[in-house]
Structure formats: C-alpha cells, structure tokens
C-alpha cells in the first residue's frame, strides 16, 4: 500500500498534484502570516502596536479577518457583467499557484523540476493583468475601470525591464531553470548574483514591486484617487482572494529574486529551505518597509521610470553581460 502510494507520488503527475496541494496550503498560511506581518510592520513604523487584541499580540487577528471575509455577503453591483465580475478573482489567484511550482526551495524541495521554470513563472504571472482588467471592466464602476486601465499599462510596461534583468542572469548562467541558477551560486557569498549583477537585481526588484502593484507603485488601487481601484466593488471573500493573490505574487517575486540573485538555498548551519525562506521574507520585509515610507508616484512618472531608466539600463546591462559572456567563452 505504502509502496503503491509512493509510486503514485513519484509519478510526475502525482508529484505535481501533491505540490499544488502543498502550494495552496502554503499560500493560505502565507497570506495570513503576511497580512499579520504587514500590519505589525506598519504599526511598528508608526510607533503603535498594530493588531494586539485578538490572541496574544494579536496573533489570531488573521483568523478573525479570514472569518469575517468568508462570512460576508458577496455583492455584485447593479449592471455589472456578472460572469467577468465573478471570474476575475479566480483568474487572479489561479496562475499564482502554478507560479510556485518551479521555485526551488532547496535542490530537493522543488514543486516540479522543469528546465524552463523561469519562463513558466513569467508567463503565468502575466495573467494577473488580465484578472485586474476583467475586474475593472466587469464592475460597472468608473473607479474600477480607471484602476484597471492603470493596472494594464503598468504591468505591460514593467514586464519588459523585468525580463531584461532576468535575461541577464540567464545569459550568465546559461539556463532558464531556477534550480540550476540557484545551484550556480552556492560557492559562498561572493558567488551570489546580487554582487555579480547588482544592476539587474535593482531593476528586477523595482519592476517586481511595480508588477505586484505595491506602494510606491500601487496606482491601480490608489485610494486617494480611485477609492480602491479595481477592487472597489468587491466584498467578502472575492476581495479576500485578490488580497491573497497580491501577497502570493509578492512571495513569488521575492522567491524568484532569491533564486536568481541571493544564492537560493545557500547558507551555513541551517538547512537550505530555511535560508531560502529567510531571504524571501527579508525581501518581502523590504517591500513592506518601502510601502510605509514612500508616497505614491504619479502615473506618467511611473512609466517614465520604466521607459527612461529601467529599460535602457536593463538593455545596457544585458548587452554588457552578453559581451562578457561571449568574451569569457
């Protein structure tokens, strides 16, 4: 029986299903943990305790919030395109599950070893734009529509520097497999790509913040202008799913950054996965720190940063990397 089960699990399909199930659990736990962490970080930066009343130090607050979100009524606005309206949260959250598959938490702990893992993540994370677009269009709300328009322009623009920075690393290592890229950086701190490709790391991180619609690039949901942007009309768990997707994308971006630039699972004493998670969450903490420090940029400035700075710099970095790689060969 056990042997059969093991055989079933070791089958690629079985492995994938197990991984997907594990990822969904991870996402749910992660969403709650990050929401708690974000509120605590915000609280500490603002010299207040953050959530404190539910459970010791407010630890049960995420559960209370989840309970509230799940029990709330789902309301579709009058005149909304119901199909698009209800499908949008699902379109937002479904691809992110796939994005977790190729992330190498350690050489062994990888959802699926595919040699095009990076491409898979980039392809599926692009679907989030579609979800925001559907949500904005289907809500029959002008704020949502404006938010969706911003989201699309922003995501499309920032995918280019993101790709350019990723390509530089891929050129250098000669692989699109995240595990291989991470494995190439396991010879100590100096072999980490963040030191080899500092510019690519900065471009990747900035683009990642913009791709996940985090402050200071949170224009699609800029609440002082568009109340809540694309999710103005969503209530209850539909809002919760958007929320979950946002936090999961944050983890994906930071995990990819860890694998590409911060040596993946490389680190002394503790086992690899812990190092991977620690680096990922350190990057997430930096994202939160940014959010609670900076004002929001304006829309044209956002695109200017992308087209006038990140893309030229990314291209230059890519060309230089390619030239050096060729020369070394």
């Amino acid at each position, binding site marked *: 029986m056990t042997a059969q089960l093991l055989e079933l699990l070791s089958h690629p399909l079985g492995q994938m299903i197990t991984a997907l199930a594990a990822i969904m659990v991870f996402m749910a736990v992660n969403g709650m943990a990050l929401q708690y962490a974000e509120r605590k970080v915000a609280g500490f930066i603002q010299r207040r305790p953050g959530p404190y009343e539910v459970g010791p130090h407010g630890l049960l607050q995420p559960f209370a919030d989840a309970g509230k979100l799940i029990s709330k009524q789902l309301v579709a606005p009058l*005149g909304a395109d119901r199909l698009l309206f209800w499908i949008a949260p699902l379109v937002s959250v479904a691809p992110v599950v796939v994005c977790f598959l190729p992330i190498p938490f350690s050489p062994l702990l990888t959802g699926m070893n595919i040699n095009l893992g990076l491409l898979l993540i980039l392809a599926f994370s692009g679907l989030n734009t579609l979800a925001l677009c559907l949500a904005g269009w289907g809500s029959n709300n002008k*704020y949502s529509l*404006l938010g969706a328009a911003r989201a699309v322009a922003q995501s499309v623009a920032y995918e280019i520097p993101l790709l350019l920075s990723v390509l530089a690393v891929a050129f250098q290592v000669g692989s699109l497999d995240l595990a291989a890229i991470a494995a190439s950086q396991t010879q100590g701190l100096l072999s980490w790509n963040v030191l080899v490709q500092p510019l690519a790391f900065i471009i990747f991180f900035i683009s990642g913040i913009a791709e996940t619609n985090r402050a200071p690039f949170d224009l699609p949901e800029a*609440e*002082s202008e568009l109340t809540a942007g694309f999710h103005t009309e969503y209530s209850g768990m539909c809002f919760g799913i958007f929320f979950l997707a946002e936090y999961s994308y944050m983890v994906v971006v930071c995990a990819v950054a860890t694998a590409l630039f911060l040596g993946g699972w490389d680190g002394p004493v503790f086992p690899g996965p812990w190092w991977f998670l620690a680096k990922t969450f350190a990057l997430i903490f930096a994202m939160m720190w940014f959010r609670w420090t*900076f*004002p929001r940029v304006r*829309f044209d*400035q956002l695109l200017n940063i992308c087209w006038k700075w990140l893309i030229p710099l990314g291209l230059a970095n890519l060309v230089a990397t390619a030239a050096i790689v060729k020369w070394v060969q």
Partner: protein
Amino acid sequence: MSQDVNSRLTGDFYTAPFGPRLEPDGDTLVLNMGPQHPATHGVLRVVVELDGEYIRRAEPVLGYIHRMHEKMGEVKTWVQYLPNMGRVDYLHALAWNWAYVGAVEKLMGIEVPPRAEYIRVITCELNRINSHLLWWGAYLLDLGAFTPILYAFADREHIMDILQMVTGSRLTYCYYRFGGVSGDVNDEFIRRTREFVADFKKRLPMYRALVTDNIILRGRCEDIGVLTPEMARRYGATGPVLRGSGVAYDVRRAEPYSIYDRLDFDIPTGRKGDVMDRYEVRMAELDQCLRIVEQALDALPTGAHIHPDLPERFIPPKGEVYYAVEGARGKIGVYLLSDGGPKPYRVKLRSPGFSNLSLFAELAQGTLLADAVSILGSLDLVIPEIDR
C-alpha cells in the same frame, strides 16, 4: 438589461451640466468624487469630467455639511454664540474664537489686559502648528504616504495636552472670552510649552528628511497647480495659498491686531506658486509659529487674564464691525451688525477655505487626476468651515 440600469444611473442636478449634449465628441467620463471619498477630507463633492486621466472640468459641489452657523448667530445672545466658533473650523478653532471675540470687543470697546493678549497669541499659534501638522499628515495621505500622519499626530498630541491644560478641551476650543480668556495659564503650562518648542525644533529636520526632501514627493508637487498671484487675487485666496504664490499678505502684518506688531516674525512666501511652494510656506510657518510662541512666552506679563470689570450682560451699542485675524488657512473675518439688542442682528463669517476652494475648478483644469488630488490637498480645505 445592463443598458437599462445604466440609463437609470444618469446623475443629478450637478452632473447635468456635464452631459453629452455639451460635449460634441462625447468621449469623456464624468466622475463623481465625493461626498464620501478619501481625498476630499470631509463631505466635499467634486464632479470631474475626465478625458483619459486628464481633467477637462472640475466642479466642486458644496453644502453637504451646512449647519447654519450664521443664522445661529442671530438667534443666540452675543455670549451664547461663542461655542459655535470652535466648530466652524475645528482645526484652528482658536483663530475663529479670536475673530468673533475681537469683533465684539471692538464693537463694545472692551479693553483686553496685556496678559490675555499674550496668552491668546501663544495658544493661537500652538493651535496653528496643530492645524498645519494635521494638514501635513493628511496631505501626505493623499499622496499615498501613510506614515507621516502618525508622526504628525505624535507631535499634535503634545500640543493638545498643552492646550487642554488651559482650555480643558482638545479640539473644539471655546477659550477666549470677551475681554480676555476664560482661564489663566500656570507655570506648568509655560514649562511644557517651552519643552514642546525645544522638542519640536528637533523633530522638524526629521520631517524634512522623511518627506520634504523625498524625490517622489517633489515629483508630485513641483510645477503642479501653479497659481499665479493675479489668479489668487481674483479668487480672493488668502493664507498659505496666497503666500505660496509670492504675495506676502498676512493679516498679522497687514492689519496688525492684538500684539502681533510687537513680535518679530517673518512671512514666508513662495516663488512659483506651485503645490511645493504652498507646502514649503506651511512648513516654514511652523518655524515662525515656534518663534512667536517663544517670544510671547518670554514677554508674558503678569496681571489679570480677563478684564476685571465687565458688564453682566453683553449688549453692544448699535453699529457694525468687521474684524479679521489670520487663521491657518487664511484670513478669517467676522462681520457683526448690532441693533442694540441682546442678540446680533446679522453675523457674517468670512471663511478662507471658501475662497481657496473656489479656485480649484480653474486650477485643476487640464491636470491629471492624481495632480488634482494633490492640488486639492494643497489648498488645505476644512469642509465644515467652507459650508459653515
């Protein structure tokens, strides 16, 4: 079905002028911001017509928090109208207190003891710092920075503690009385005020490092919403909005009241008249307020805090009076008409926010939606004061 629903949601009297009839190409979006909207700070409603994200027209709609303060003045006795003043503009309540009290004193010829004048200056300037700090935090909230408002509140808390010691309240003060102030200050008040002034001077560089020098903030503020002095005059703008445009008009200097002509302070002005200049003027005013408070504390005379021989009932003689003071938002004017009765015959309140808001429609034209929010925030509007 969907078409049907949308045709029912066509708007109201205020959106009617924005109808497709008047727009030949009809390719615009009419967006209703407010009365419940995070950027309007209260119940202001702005109807904007958007072409993409650019604003073609913006029209503020007022009256959602009209409380008939002027009419209330006609049905209450002269003294009974005092607590209303703290509610007109709750952020700089003491300036409104002063405007009304000063008008009645002028009408009746009541002399204010010097100690009361100094106490008024100290408390009014502390209140001005309080108001500017709240504006600072709320404005950055408009621009998407969430943290500064809590730092501002940490400092506001000290001011409110200090003002609570003498006024007893923390927001809607009713402290000034005809002929003085309702309670004297003690040594504890003076000590804590000095302490606050010293502490706050240390906080200001932090504000500058965190916000004023920030490149993102500068990008959102510089060359946005340029208000020419000519336009500011045309709309009757006053306060930091006018001074940001380079006009050094301050009631405390232009028509000195109380003891302001004896105090040494500068009137900060901007050069370009953009949002950043208005921002810088307010931040510079914080410094000047501290200077005024320090000087007034040093020169605080002893004596009575209220005129010792006041009539039991205040019945001013027949006549009219206009008295203006400088509030945090601009020139606060109170016009009173007395028919010699126990109640004012007519009360007219000139609120600076009303004039400052009226220029928004012209200023926002052609800007991005995000810039319009930034401009609206830079005018420092307190909606209850506008509607009165």
